[in-house]
């Protein structure tokens, strides 16, 4: 009865909404956060393949410039079966756009955020289930517009994912700046609306719907990370949205926000302007630098929980971890200028951005040391989620350290816009975010689908991914410091890139990229095979402490028959007196109860 009194103050109601019965309301226009999370997961996986194949075409061209690409070359029969250079620009533009806006952000926040937040805080659903459904379905206009843009005259956008004016604002500049760029802008506006609806929902849910006893400082790191990420999104996205709308207006009704004053385009006699080109870059990076953290913080949270579970040890330095993600989010708003050191921005401003950018490396360092501290002295179980989490830590270190080179303004003069930065971002977004996604899939698959994935295949997949990932991306630092520019369709134009070393490295990276792509077939097979034929999963297969593991796998429509009461943090592993068990779930008042429950489920 005391539970009831506690929960009354938290705005819970104990009546459970009836489960929807029709297929459409159950699986398509679902209001259930778990289904919506899984919808985000499936569309993310599909887009992952598209984005990945685009990248392979990019890699092919870099390794063997103008050699017909297998299969795809039929598309370019008119060009002698060779990739036209403007198409090359479309490939890397779309690769980045798809991976950032349709894969990593929707997978981390849309799929894992949706599925996990209510379960981990002990709520029956999100605060606004309808808004949640809209947030998923706003992704589809975005995906459709982006896909459609390939088939318009001039084809898809080719101004890079950064989409700098004036390349992006004037239709004469390049074929992709015909309708393709307009569709690109409209598509991203939809993706932004989707993210914004999601983040408002996450913030509200985490503040309002925590189970009784779930204080903020008892939240698992995953939830903390999702909370901070949602705040970042809610504050940064409006700026991107306005930048996109301004660019759209420039393109459609000739507003010239981003065309310089009294500017005559290429002696055309046509004087335009009144705006500022660099303004777009400021607005764009004001969002897109925090976006890098939107793409890594949820991964950091998930990895923290997974490391603790499989080290059978409390998370080391919980509060420093919380403070450091908060610091990353705060500092994340005052470092955007590091993308603009060579842009013509006042160099004195560059110096201050260098200082703030150096400082943002600090919370990341603190987190890394705490992850090592978590594993130190533990009882490390090398399961497939754990391996991917360790891979995250090992690779994120490289991504973090290589960032320091770009933060140093003079060094940045040489490596800016070279492959060094391409290597850096892939160590953060593949070595970091993607391994975190893999870890999350292996870890929560049993909860999502009620079946276990195959461990052996999971390990083979990790081994191959880790190996070929390093083979694909590490040498990018080397060719980058040698001076290899990014976004060029044919490096052999330049004499200093014609040496056998550079050519050889480009080919080596491409071969590894193809193998990396092939290796992903293992997880796809494992995923779909286990979905139907995997062994049935118990409620708590990993013996973890967070609340999602105290409801059945998969959880019922209403998640919790009775809203759980939370007694402590989620990291009570290997504490005294819990033998023979080494864990103590958040909702269990006494350890003896755990032992009983444990015996029951076996």
């Amino acid at each position: 009865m005391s539970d009831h009194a506690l929960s009354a103050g938290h705005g819970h109601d104990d009546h459970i909404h009836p489960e929807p019965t029709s297929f459409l309301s159950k699986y398509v226009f679902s209001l259930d956060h778990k289904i919506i999370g899984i919808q985000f997961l499936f569309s993310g996986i599909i887009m992952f393949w598209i984005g990945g194949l685009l990248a392979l075409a990019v890699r092919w061209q870099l390794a063997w410039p103008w050699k017909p690409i297998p299969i795809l070359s039929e598309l370019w029969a008119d060009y002698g079966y060779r990739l036209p250079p403007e198409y090359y620009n479309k490939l890397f533009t779309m690769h980045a756009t798809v991976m950032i806006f349709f894969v990593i952000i929707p997978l981390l926040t849309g799929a894992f955020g949706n599925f996990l937040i209510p379960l981990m805080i002990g709520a029956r659903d999100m605060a606004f289930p309808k808004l949640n459904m809209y947030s998923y379905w706003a992704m589809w206009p975005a995906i459709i517009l982006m896909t459609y843009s390939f088939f318009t005259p001039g084809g898809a956008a080719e101004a890079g994912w950064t989409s700098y004016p004036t390349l992006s604002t004037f239709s004469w500049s390049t074929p992709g700046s015909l309708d393709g760029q307009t569709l690109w802008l409209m598509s991203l506006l939809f993706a932004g609306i989707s993210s914004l609806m999601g983040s408002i929902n996450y913030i509200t849910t985490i503040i309002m719907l925590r189970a009784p006893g779930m204080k903020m400082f008892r939240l698992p790191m995953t939830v903390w990370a999702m909370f901070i990420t949602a705040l970042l999104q809610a504050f940064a996205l409006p700026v991107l949205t306005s930048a996109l709308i301004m660019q759209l207006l420039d393109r459609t009704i000739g507003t010239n926000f981003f065309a310089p004053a009294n500017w005559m385009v290429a002696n055309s006699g046509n004087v335009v302007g009144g705006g500022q080109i660099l303004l777009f870059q400021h607005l764009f990076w004001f969002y897109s630098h925090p976006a890098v953290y939107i793409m890594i913080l949820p991964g950091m949270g998930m990895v923290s929980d997974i490391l603790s579970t499989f080290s059978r040890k409390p998370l080391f330095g919980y509060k420093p971890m919380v403070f450091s993600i908060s610091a990353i989010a705060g500092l994340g708003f005052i470092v955007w200028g590091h993308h603009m050191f060579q842009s013509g921005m006042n160099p004195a401003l560059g110096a201050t951005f260098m200082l703030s950018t150096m400082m943002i490396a600090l919370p990341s360092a603190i987190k890394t040391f705490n992850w090592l501290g978590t594993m130190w002295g533990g009882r490390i179980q090398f399961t497939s989620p754990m391996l991917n989490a360790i891979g995250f830590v090992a690779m994120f270190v490289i991504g973090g350290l290589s960032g320091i080179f770009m933060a140093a303004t003079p060094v940045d003069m040489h490596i800016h816009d070279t492959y060094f930065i391409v290597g850096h971002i892939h160590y953060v977004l593949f070595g970091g975010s993607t391994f975190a996604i893999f870890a999350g899939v292996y870890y929560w698959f049993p909860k999502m689908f009620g079946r276990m994935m195959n461990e052996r295949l999971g390990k083979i997949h990790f081994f191959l991914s880790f190996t070929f990932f390093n083979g694909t991306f590490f040498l990018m630092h080397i060719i980058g410091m040698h001076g290899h520019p990014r976004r060029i369709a044919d490096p052999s134009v330049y004499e200093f890139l014609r040496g056998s070393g550079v050519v050889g490295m480009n080919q080596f990276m491409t071969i590894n990229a193809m193998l990396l792509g092939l290796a992903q077939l293992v997880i796809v097979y494992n995923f779909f095979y286990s979905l139907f034929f995997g062994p049935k999963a118990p409620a708590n297969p990993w013996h973890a402490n967070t609340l999602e593991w105290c409801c059945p796998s998969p959880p019922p429509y209403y998640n919790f028959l009775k809203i759980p009461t939370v007694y402590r943090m989620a990291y009570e592993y290997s504490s005294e007196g819990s033998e023979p068990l080494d864990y103590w779930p958040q909702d269990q008042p006494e350890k003896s109860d755990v032992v009983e429950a444990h015996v029951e489920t076996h």
Partner: protein
Amino acid sequence: MKTDRLWTLLFAIGAIFATGCFIYARTDADWWLVPNVSSMGREIDHLFIIILWITGIVFIGTQIVLCYTLWTFADAPGRKAQYVHGQMKLEVIWTIIPASILVFLALYQMGTWSKIKFRSSLPKVQPVAEVTGRQFQWLFRYAGDDRRLHTDDDIITVNDFHFVKNEPTVIHLKSQDVLHAFFLPQFRIKQDAVPGLTIPVWFDSDTSGKFELVCAELCGWGHYKMRGNVTVHETQAEFDTWLKKAKTEQNRDQLALANAANGG
């Protein structure tokens, strides 16, 4: 399982591969920083190598700790995990040490940065040329005999940039259409060319010879081929001779030449 700790080897091999790449790079001209010929480039390389050492040591240190941890604390029968939630002293140590390294690094860069990019440190010399990027070529406008730009005797070359060894050299960088970036890899110089802005850029060279100019900012379908030739002359006289020749070439009149040939 006892053999599970062998996974440590994979992470160790990854770290060795990464370290090995940079060690090998030092010995192969195709891998290392492309050879530098400018005075500011020397400073930039010095800063690069300092950061490489610091990050390299941190990298190797964390990977050793990671691998040691994985190997030593792997699950084994009878093993019990420690029950600790953290340690304030450690947190303070691993906050203060990286913080001071990072602040040192930032301050250590400032001098070079201001020497290269601050307007106040721009050498007080006539710009050797006005450089304009346009899809997909570089235009160089040199002053003629009146030593002033934008007069009738200007000499304009396409993708052909000349200046003199050991002289501080200034250009005025512009763009006609979209963003470009003036990138001289062998001089460690990079600056975006922005429509509507005129940005002064300075550099020098301690070596005469031929070098390459790269466009480093995406500027459209032909971005990849927006390449320029750079020639550094040994002496001012050599440069003047070239400029005179370029002027003769610019003013070449086939009709006059034909008349001269026939009428002679």
